[in-house]
Structure formats: C-alpha cells, structure tokens
C-alpha cells in the first residue's frame, strides 16, 4: 500500500514535471563561415521568437526551449549537430540549416530517426520529390524555380530576346542555371551563354568577355552574398549597357555597400519582406512582414533586417501550429509517436501566412508557397534625397 502510494506520488510528480518540461526544438544554423551573413539573422530571429513565445505563455501552456548549434557552414558539422540534437537532446523537431548542401546532408539522419526538419535553404531538391526520406523534410525559402518565373516575366515585359547567365560554380549557381534556363526557354528567350565563376574569384574578365561577344539583351548573375558584385562591375567596366539581373541571394545590405554605384539599376526577385513597406495595402503577407521587421529592428537596430531571417520566422510560423495540434493528439513522453505527429501536422499546414508568403503543405509539396505571394521584382535605386542605395518595388505578380 505504502509502496503503491509512493509509486503513485512518483508518477504524479513525473507527470507534473512532464507538464512543465519545455518543448525542445533543435536549431542548426550557419552562424559562422561563408554563409554567416544568412545564418546570423536566422539565429537572431529564432532567439527573438523563443523569448517572445515564452514571455507570452509558451505553446499550449508549455515553454519552448530552442537548442542552437552552429554548423560553421559545413555539411559534416551540420550532420553531427543533427545527430546530437536527435539522440542526446531528444528534440521534438529540427529547424535547419542555412545552406543547401548541409540541408541535403541532414536528410538521412532525420529520416532514420523519424524527426521532422524544416530547412531554411533554397534548393528544391531538399524537399522534392517527396519520397520515403523527404517525407520528414520541409522548407520555407522560395526555390530557384519559383524565383526564375518573376525574372522571366520581367524580361518579357522589357523586350529581352537574348540573355546570358553567369553563376557560381557550386550548388547555388548550378541550381539557378538549370531552373532559369528552363524557364527562359519556355518563354522563348534565348540563352546565349552560360558561364561559371567561383565565389573566391578575383577576376571574371574571361567569362565577361565571352558574354559580351554574344551581345545579349540582359545578363543574369546567379550568386549570393557580395561576390556577385564582381561580374557586374566587370560587365559595366567593359561597357555593357544591357539589363543586369541578380538573384535573391544578393538581397542583403552588404551587396549595396560593396556594389555602390555599379549596382544601381540591378533587378532581382526577392521575398516580399525585403520591401515590406512598399507592398500594396492588400498584399496578404504585408502585415506579417511589417510586424516581423519592426520586432527585429527594435532588437537589432534600424536597417538590420534581411530576408533570410524571414525564412526562420516562417519556419517557426508553420512549426508552432503543428506543435499545438500534435500536443492535442500525443504525449511528448512518447517521443517517437510525438515526432511522427509533428511531421503529419506539418504536412497538414494550411493557409499559414508567413513573411515570405502563404504556406499550404500537402503530401507532395513540402514547401507550399506560390510564387505569386512569395516573390516580387525589386530594383536597386539611389534615393535622391538621402543619396543612399535602396530596394524599390518594381512589380508584384498577384
């Protein structure tokens, strides 16, 4: 009798503790290394969200705990971090990571352990096709395919008949080459040159020369960070007068700082959050994007926001309701079943408005964005009053 009482007490205590125990979410971000300028705003955003959620009473009354691991932009470290989060920290779900190669590497460990993962990297291959392994993988950023459509539409509107492509000789540049060249061909735009350069290159004169020898109406530069300034500067120095397009990988303040006068007039597709204050009033994610930017800037300084942090915000925006619904179905003490429930509920995401668009997941679509809300065309302009370079909304596709 006494023993049973103690046992009951222990059980009750255990249940009580379980009620109090925080919901552990694993985060893998590239806060250092080459992708740091993307990873840092992502980490900042999630840290901000964790505080905010816990201050407002947590998820379904339970506090959340984000366990952050920096993968240093390295695939091996990302995979190791994933295994650690799953086995040692016993997380319920994982958000991560910043780069495409590392996100691809994380698919195996999460699929083996049966933990849902939301990636913040661009490449379509992370979630497509949804097979036995990718069932466990979701992502929030727009794909190259989705971002190619606005570029091609803008080119058509600007009477572009021939285009040259120059991109990174890595997964990012190759992904864009495939996606854009297919979209351009479909629209009847001829791709007359397809060149590659390395992120670390200090000269692209040869590639630019080849492009100039084909005399295209427009050039698309497929790179991210500040490295894509180099081909653009070389093109202008060599007297190229056509349109220059960049990808959303350059939608960061550093690109404007390094580029200076050379990048004025650049057109690029971007998530709507980049020009949140210029969006039409009826744009569906305007409010969410504005709120996010205000919160972020209040904490990290005016002008500190970037679109990349928005992907992290969106990852939590879809994970949070999924967790709430899973909590109604399963006990977190039954870890495997709860992890499965999170995956199913993520797949059941409907009409979640994020900073970059509206998410509608399905068993065959683990991104769930339409380019209509997820992409706008932006142009770099010099503000006449302040003399600073700014992003200006060129067109939306709704």
């Amino acid at each position: 009798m006494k023993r049973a009482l103690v046992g009951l007490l222990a059980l009750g205590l255990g249940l009580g503790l379980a009620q109090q125990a925080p919901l552990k979410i694993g985060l893998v971000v590239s806060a250092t290394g080459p992708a740091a300028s993307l990873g840092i705003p992502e980490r900042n955003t999630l840290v901000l969200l964790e505080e905010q959620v816990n201050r407002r009473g947590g998820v379904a009354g339970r506090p959340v705990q984000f366990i952050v691991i920096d993968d240093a932009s390295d695939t091996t470290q990302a995979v190791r971090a994933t295994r650690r989060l799953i086995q040692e920290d016993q997380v319920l779900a994982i958000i991560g990571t910043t780069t495409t190669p590392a996100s691809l590497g994380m698919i195996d460990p999460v699929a083996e352990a049966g933990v849902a993962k939301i990636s913040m990297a661009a490449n379509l291959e992370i979630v497509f096709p949804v097979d036995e392994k990718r069932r466990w993988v979701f992502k929030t950023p727009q794909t190259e395919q989705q971002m190619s459509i606005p570029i091609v539409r803008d080119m058509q509107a600007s009477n572009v008949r021939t285009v040259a492509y120059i991109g990174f000789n890595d997964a990012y540049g190759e992904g864009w080459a495939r996606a854009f060249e297919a979209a351009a061909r479909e629209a009847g735009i001829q791709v007359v040159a397809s060149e590659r350069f390395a992120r670390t290159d200090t000269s692209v004169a040869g590639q630019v020369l080849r492009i100039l020898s084909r005399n295209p109406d427009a050039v698309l530069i497929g790179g991210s960070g500040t490295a894509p300034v180099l081909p653009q500067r070389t093109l202008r120095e060599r007297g190229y007068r056509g349109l220059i397009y960049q990808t959303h990988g350059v939608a960061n303040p550093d690109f404007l700082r390094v580029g200076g006068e050379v990048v004025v007039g650049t057109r690029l597709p971007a998530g709507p959050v980049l020009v949140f204050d210029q969006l039409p009033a009826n744009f569906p994610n305007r409010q969410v994007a504005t709120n996010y930017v205000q919160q972020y800037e209040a904490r990290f300084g005016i002008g500190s926001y970037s679109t990349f942090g928005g992907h992290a915000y969106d990852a939590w925006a879809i994970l949070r309701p999924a967790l709430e619904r899973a909590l109604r179905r399963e006990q977190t003490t039954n870890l495997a079943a709860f992890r499965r429930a999170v995956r199913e509920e993520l797949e059941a995401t409907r009409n979640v408005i994020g900073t970059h668009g509206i998410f509608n997941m399905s068993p065959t679509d683990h991104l769930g964005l339409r380019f209509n809300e997820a992409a706008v065309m932006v142009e770099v302009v010099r503000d006449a009053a302040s003399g600073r370079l700014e992003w200006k909304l060129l067109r939306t596709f709704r």
Partner: protein
Amino acid sequence: MDWTIVSFLTADALQNGTIYALLALSLVLVFAVTRVILVPLGEFLVFAPLTYVWFLPPEVSGLNLQGQIPGTAWLASAMLLWWAILDRSNLRRAGLLLLGAIGVVGIAWWGVQGVPMWLGWIFAILVVLPIGPASYRLFFEPAKNASVLTYLIIAVGLHFAYMGLGLVFFGPEQFRLPAILVGQTTIGLVPVNNQAFLVYGFAFIAMLGLYLFFTRSIYGKALRACAVNRYGARLLGISPSQAGYVSFGIATMIVCISGMLLAPLISPAYFQGFLLGLKGFVAGILGGLISYPLAVVGALLVGAMESWASFQASAYKDAIVFALLLPILFWRSLRSHEIGEEE
C-alpha cells in the same frame, strides 16, 4: 576568338599574373632562406587592405565601426608581446618588441580616430607587417632544423588559423576600397584600370629592389648564403634566425603592399587570400621554389592559363590551372636528381 578577345584576355592575364608573380617571389624568397612554404602569405595579402577599411572614414567605407580597433592590430600586438616574452633574456630586443606591441595598437587606435587616407594606407601596412616575422619567431623557429614537411604542416595550420581569425576580425563579406588612381586608360582596344598600373609599377620596383638587395647589399648576400647552405652560412657568422626574420619581413611587406594596391580591383574578403596564394605557389613550383625568374615566368603562365580557361570553359577554370602542376612537376622530376631532403 579574334584579336580583340586575345588582347583583352592578355590584359587580364597580365594583371592576375603580376599578382601571382609577387606572391611567387615572396614564397621563393621565404622558402630559399628558411625552407618554409609560407602558405599564409595569401592571408597577409588580404589582411592589409581589410585593416585599411577600418581606418577609412565611414562615408568612404560605408560602415559604421564606431572607432573599433581592427583585430589584426590585437593579433600583431599579442604576437610581438609573446615574442618579447620568449626573448626576455635579450633585454634590449625584448624592450623594442614591447614598444612595438604597444606601438601597433597605438597606430591602430590613431588610425580609427580618423586620419588622412594616405596615412591610414601606411598604417594598415605597419599594423599587419609584424605578423610575418613574428610568425617565424613563434611558430617556425622553435621547430629548428625540422623537415620541409614539418614546416609545411605548421604553415598549413597557420593558414587555417589566420583565415579563421580573418573571419572573426572582418566578417564574412567583402569590402569596397577606394582606388588611388580612378578611371581607365585605353591601350589599343583594351581598357585598363589605372589602378592596375600601380600594381605593375610596384611589381617592377619590387623585382628591381630584390635584385639589387640580393646582389649589392650585405644583408641580401647573407640571405643568399643562407639559401645556398645554411650550415656554411652559420660558420661564417650569419644567424639563421636573423635571416628568417628578414626574409619573412620582406615577403610580408611585398605581399601587404601588393594586397593594398590590388584591393580596389577585387573587393577583398577574408577568404580570398588563399586561392591567390595557391596560384602563386603553382607559379613558384615552376622554378622549383628556388629560381626567381622562373617563378615570374610561371606566374605569367598561370595568369594566361587562367584567363584562357575562364573564357573557354569557365566551369573548369581552377581545375585547369591546378592541373598545370602535373606537367610542371613531371618536368621538374626529370630535371632534378636530388632524392629526399637536404641537410
């Protein structure tokens, strides 16, 4: 491929080749005297201009650094301090090193307060310069008489350390630097950046200076003696560690100035030094890391290959350049009859 394209590519090859040549010369200089393959030279090349960014007025650099002292100054100062502690038995030298350690931070502090741009330019070189000789004293000198392989391993380790520190000090992104000479000049059909002429001019001066130094000055002759036979040089009273400091110092100086002149053309970032250094190394290999003229020829060859490859098959550019190593090493192995390590 017509003449216009060939002349454009040649101009590009010349610009890249000149930088590789300066790096190759520095590598050969260091290797000949100390048997160290100084992989981190590429890092020194970007450290100088990145430090300069910190000394620029905010409206030029586009950054708001709020008088933050560049990390390279702390690094140089710490290394000099450590050197002073190691050499504490030689009071005069330790005192000078201590002064240097304070001086570097002092210069950097002065630099970030806002100085004329030309003064900041010189300050940046002065701040980065001590890192070279100090690297020799702190990391290579303790491994006296080690094999070339040991030195190489230390050098590669240093490269990773400096590159990592570069990321910590300067962040992941590139910076834009003002050119000393703006605009372009058209030679024939080819527009050449005026800044590139400074690079050529410096390369010429550096080569001429090295030639005079090695043939006319007693220090230069001592370095050459060290390169030919370290043991013999020691018997004649030439200190190998002195020779090490001088060679590391000269190499760092050449590389820093090259970096400062090149930076406005490339928008430097912490990660860019390594590949430049590696191509300089390929060039140096052509001369067996011994011959200066062959290293320059090698550098121009690497530059030409690179331009041609980036025009013809840009996706395979670096592969083609590094594949150059194979025939070069093959040719060298036919010519060389030495087996194993010297000394």
